[in-house]
């Protein structure tokens, strides 16, 4: 065949020559669109109304009023700040810990199988149960953590860490990271396995220290998965409120009031669906923008690298 024929054949990749796949995929994709995207669009439309929950649903179109209200609602704005701190901290902390754990497991020492099980253990528990266990661990009277703090005369021994204005958010973040470790560990482990043993051995021979190895070999290799994992987790964590809800209900004094909890309160507890939807829309747009910039910047770096 001529060269151009070869090229044409290669361009029409395997899948294009099998319209079969498109046929099978189309209805499903359509289904996902209908079931996932469209309700979201509809819910977004509610953001422009003043819908309230009730037996007789009445609503009026109010345009951008909800958005103005949201931007002047100091509680909402501060929840944004708290949510950002929460999402970033939990994601970064769980990533670092998950990475360390994955490395330790991959060393195939005596402790590796134990760590493997421990690493996925938080997964086995529903967030509500996790919250309860940690609440009990952090009980200032009967919990071991406070007991320890008291024993070593460290600060915080006599107070409820979850009820203290300064410690509440950090404490909740640590627990959030605890829950997030399995996801990170499992993914990193899988990614680590894709580096061939030879490459690792070679770095040993070249006399690289572990730190150098990490910086120049492992991390660059895993960059795409780190990016993807980071983005997904920021989204998840920003929107998660189950843990915070059970542990602190957003307190004390609003120090752990994350946006997702705010939205939930407004919509479910107080029935202000229009307002809550506007907040939801703001959150979505903000996350999309931030992540868009992040991913764009990363992709650029990759291309240049």
């Amino acid at each position: 065949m001529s060269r151009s024929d070869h090229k044409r054949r290669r361009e029409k990749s395997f899948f294009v020559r099998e319209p079969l796949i498109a046929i099978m995929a189309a209805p499903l994709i359509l289904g996902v669109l209908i079931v996932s995207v469209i309700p979201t669009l509809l819910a977004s439309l509610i953001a422009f109304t003043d819908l309230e929950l009730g037996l007789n649903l009445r609503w009026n179109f109010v345009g951008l009023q909800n958005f103005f209200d949201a931007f002047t609602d100091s509680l909402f704005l501060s929840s944004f700040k708290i949510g950002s701190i929460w999402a970033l901290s939990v994601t970064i902390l769980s990533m670092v810990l998950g990475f360390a754990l994955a490395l330790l497991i991959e060393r195939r020492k005596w402790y590796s199988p134990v760590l493997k099980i421990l690493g996925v253990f938080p997964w086995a528990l529903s967030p509500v149960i996790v919250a309860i266990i940690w609440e009990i661990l952090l009980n200032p009277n009967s919990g071991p953590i406070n007991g320890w703090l008291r024993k070593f005369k460290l600060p915080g021994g006599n107070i409820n860490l979850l009820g203290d204005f300064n410690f509440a958010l950090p404490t909740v973040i640590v627990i959030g990271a605890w829950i997030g470790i399995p996801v990170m560990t499992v993914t990193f482990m899988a990614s680590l396995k894709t580096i061939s043993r030879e490459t690792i051995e070679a770095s040993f021979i070249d006399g690289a220290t572990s730190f150098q190895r990490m910086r120049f070999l492992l991390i660059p290799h895993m960059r795409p998965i780190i990016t993807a994992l980071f983005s997904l987790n920021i989204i998840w964590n920003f929107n998660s409120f189950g843990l915070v809800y059970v542990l602190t209900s957003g307190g004390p004094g609003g120090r752990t009031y994350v946006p997702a909890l705010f939205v939930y309160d407004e919509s479910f507890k107080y029935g202000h669906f229009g307002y809550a939807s506007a907040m939801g829309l703001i959150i979505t747009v903000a996350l999309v923008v931030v992540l868009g910039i992040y991913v764009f910047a990363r992709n650029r770096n990759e291309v240049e690298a």
Partner: protein
Amino acid sequence: MIKTVISKISIGALVAFFFLFLGGPFVWLLGMSVKPPIDILSYEPRIFPKKFYFQNYSDALEKSGIIQAFFNSFVIATISTLIILMLAVTPSYFFARNKGILTKSVSIWILVSQIFPLSLLVIPIFLTMQRLNLINTRPGLILIYIIINLPFALWLLRGFVLSIPSELEEAAQIDGATFTQVIRKVIFPLLAPGLIVVASFTFINVWNEFFFALVILSDPEKSTLPLKLAQFLGAEGRGLFGALAAATTMAIIPSLALFALIQKRFSDNFLAGAVKG
């Protein structure tokens, strides 16, 4: 020499930290499950009580319907996961291979819709379920779990497919393989680990899910495990913690067994090239 010592100590410290941080709560949970109620309130904490109190376990088992709830959770999670896997394979393959603008924007749309807070979608979803007469039915709940988890499964699986170089398929085709053979012999083995990862994530999400189960199911016989466990709790931070700990311990064992099974699969070097954004 010193460097090795330092690094050995720091690694040791790290291992100890993980043992404590990850395992500590579990050990405490075990301890709680054998503590009598009075001890749970006690001021000086001990890990295990002087006298083991196994009544928590019988209390937990007696709690009406907990075994049924376990069964329900398992069936619902398994079915949801299987269906999602089935449904996600083809479209994710499509999304991975098709580089067209339309496909890219559709996949981005799907991802963005996941960012929207779920609590706002609950009532519209609920009203729809009601119109379909699926309220208070387990199949209805399964349908919801599929709806919620499918987009993410698609996205994840797409990532796995992307890591399988398309040249492999072409090469196989050039070598004369039929469509089915390409799928079975080339794609499927390489995708298997990805399928396992997606299956695990999905299963766990459904297994632990509380909110939709709470609002959809009202018959006690249909309850899932998270709902039943919540019933050990009362208001204002009180609850039957001993029995709850016992119930949770019992619930964890099968979950861990499942993970152990999956972990075995992981250790095989199936995962070469499996994970990429």
